[in-house]
């Protein structure tokens, strides 16, 4: 029956994938505090980082950046559940995202999955399919807030 929800939550077991990493990958420090996964790099498994991470390659599994930002670059393909402070999608992201600050999907970005974040910003032309949980801004808790100072212009807070 097509209303049955398929189970897509099973995290893939860490599998070695050429040309690069597998299992639990901790991204080493790099100058400037931003780690970059290059366009030819594929990772399967868990990725942990304690600095901002830009993905131009591919990640399959999960990405955990507790206090940092994940940027899925234009050539990046992330098929993973993501936990981060902020997430910017310029490429393709399939998976559930939990962000403590914001999620931005740019005009070239494509995302499929569920978002839990206090701010979600979509640029016109971006692609999104999934659900957005709007709990942090809960007007029920703040009683009648109509204007939303948290909604920012596309790209105004990306630090670029």
């Amino acid at each position, binding site marked *: 029956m097509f209303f049955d929800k398929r189970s897509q939550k099973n995290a893939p077991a860490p599998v070695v994938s050429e040309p690069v990493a597998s299992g639990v990958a901790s991204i080493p420090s790099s100058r400037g505090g931003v780690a970059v996964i290059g366009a030819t790099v594929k990772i399967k498994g868990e990725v942990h980082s304690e600095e901002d991470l830009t993905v131009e390659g591919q990640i399959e599994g999960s990405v955990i950046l507790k206090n940092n930002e994940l940027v899925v670059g234009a050539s990046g393909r992330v098929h993973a559940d993501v936990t981060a402070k902020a997430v910017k999608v310029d490429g393709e992201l399939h998976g559930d995202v939990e962000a403590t600050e914001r999620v931005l999907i740019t005009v070239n970005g494509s995302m499929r999955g569920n978002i839990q974040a206090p701010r*979600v910003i*979509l*640029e*016109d032309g971006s692609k999104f*399919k999934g659900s*957005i949980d*709007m709990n942090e801004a809960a*007007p029920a808790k703040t009683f009648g807030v109509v204007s939303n100072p948290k*909604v920012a212009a596309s790209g*105004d807070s990306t630090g670029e």
Partner: protein
Amino acid sequence: MSPNHAAAKRQTGVSTELFKSGLMGGILPSAPQTRAQKVLDFGAAHAATIAHLQATFWGRLTVLDLISQADLINALLSDEEAVDQRAYLLEESFEPCFGQAYDVVLLWDFALYLSDENLGWLNDWLDTMLSFQGVAHGFVCHNATRSIAAKRWGILAQDQLEAESESGQVPYRHLRGVLSRTLSDFEIEKSVLMKDGRLEFVIRRKTTR
């Protein structure tokens, strides 16, 4: 339109048109609420809708981006040979909303992409996915001889919609009577004529008397 949203529009150069909505304000959940509400959007993710809902309600917004596939869905629903293909497409298309019951379903122009026969499928689908008190909002035509340009819709405010022009026209020009007949488990609660010939409607489940 917030200054930030307006700025984003200028950057992208998207051509938009504003429409007054006489019905949207009456169906959208608003603060303060005692429980989380669930809104399902058949259209593409729209920056204005997300910004507006973030400001005015708490709960869950699910976006299906379905209207871009509506022609294909209509064709497969009409093709008795395409059982497997149809099942796959429907499962894929509706996966984000499985297991949910929605308070509000925003159909936008979706009904205008389905043939008369396939509107019955929409009736069954809404019957499954709408909560008991749930409502659905959408458009049909006021006049069958007037063509209706395809648009991508968003919610700018409780009483204002934003429409971005898409290429082409909607394929079917259903009138209010067709909707009443084919969505047999529902009744049209209200309908309002819009400036481009669309008839904005809100439907609710029929109550047993």
